[in-house]
């Protein structure tokens, strides 16, 4: 005899619970948490190097970085004299909330104003996993092509901030910045879009100001 049970729950229920616990903790500690998502090579680590260097002295920041292998990205942040912890996923294509929880316990960052979580380079899978962050930031570099928001709509609907990186290459590559911004706003009319070059510093001030305003809003 067979029976059918009506279940109706999220498949990622365990992750959702872990993410909610993290969100409560970050809210009590009044730490702003940002989850950065992009394809490999879009410039997540480079943007973070420039960002934490600008905020250093004013704010206590730390970086958790997920990669399949090597400590290279965490090393790049540590070279600036700032705290970072590398999560090695051993092949997994995304970070989940339990990995973040475990990494925070091992990293021993202490009290923080801002925590940046640099996800595994992948425009697809990290989208599904809540890490307890305040918001997701999607990065798209000018060398990736200007059709990406419609090709990977999920992350562009979920990220409240989109950063177009490597804008110093605008005259070298065929990348229609306006068309991309239209695609992003089609998928998410409320999204904030920044044009940034970590190399020349263009747009860095506006991006960092947005982070500081979000921190102030969380503490208000």
């Amino acid at each position, binding site marked *: 005899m067979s029976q059918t049970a009506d279940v109706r*729950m999220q498949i990622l229920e365990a992750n959702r619970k872990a993410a909610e616990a993290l969100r409560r903790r970050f809210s009590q500690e009044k730490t702003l948490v940002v989850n950065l998502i992009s394809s490999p090579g879009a410039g997540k680590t480079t943007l973070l190097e420039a960002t934490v260097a600008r905020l250093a002295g004013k704010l206590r920041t730390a970086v958790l970085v997920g990669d399949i292998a090597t400590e290279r990205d965490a090393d790049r942040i540590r070279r600036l004299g700032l705290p970072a912890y590398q999560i090695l996923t051993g092949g997994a294509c995304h970070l989940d909330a339990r990995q973040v929880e475990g990494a925070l316990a091992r990293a021993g960052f202490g009290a923080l104003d801002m925590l940046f979580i640099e996800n595994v380079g992948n425009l697809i899978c990290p989208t599904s996993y809540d890490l307890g962050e305040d918001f997701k930031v999607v990065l798209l570099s000018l060398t990736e092509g200007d059709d990406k928001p419609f090709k990977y709509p999920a992350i562009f609907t*979920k990220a409240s901030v989109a950063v177009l990186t490597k804008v110093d290459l605008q005259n070298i590559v065929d990348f229609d910045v306006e068309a991309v911004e239209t695609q992003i706003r089609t998928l998410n009319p409320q999204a904030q879009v920044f044009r940034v070059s970590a190399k020349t510093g263009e747009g860095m001030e506006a991006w960092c100001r947005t982070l500081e305003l979000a921190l102030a809003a969380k503490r208000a």
Partner: protein
Amino acid sequence: MHEASLALELLKITQGVLAEHGGSRILRVKVAVGELSAVEPELLRYAWEAVTLESPAQGSVLEVEFFPARQVCPTCGPVQRSPGSWLPLCVSCGAPLRVEGGDELDLLEVEFDVNGEKS
């Protein structure tokens, strides 16, 4: 790409449901997959086949219900679109559209055998 980890989570949950109801074998599992869930239904089915080997769900059917995302105009309501294509603005009034739904990734139903017999 993360279909295998989703299938493993699904197996854990459905085995829990089976134990809770005193069932012996899982026959069918129905899930909801949204257009914006970043999950490929076909790959989820392959992953399910692989992770259920040697488990009480071996040979069970994974049924996938697909949910498209909707584009909604704040004044005119939902607008017509086909999956994969996006309207930049409302065709009637030109207002920006909100994207709603399509991020479903849920377990809906589990059908199982009781007493080890298949009906």
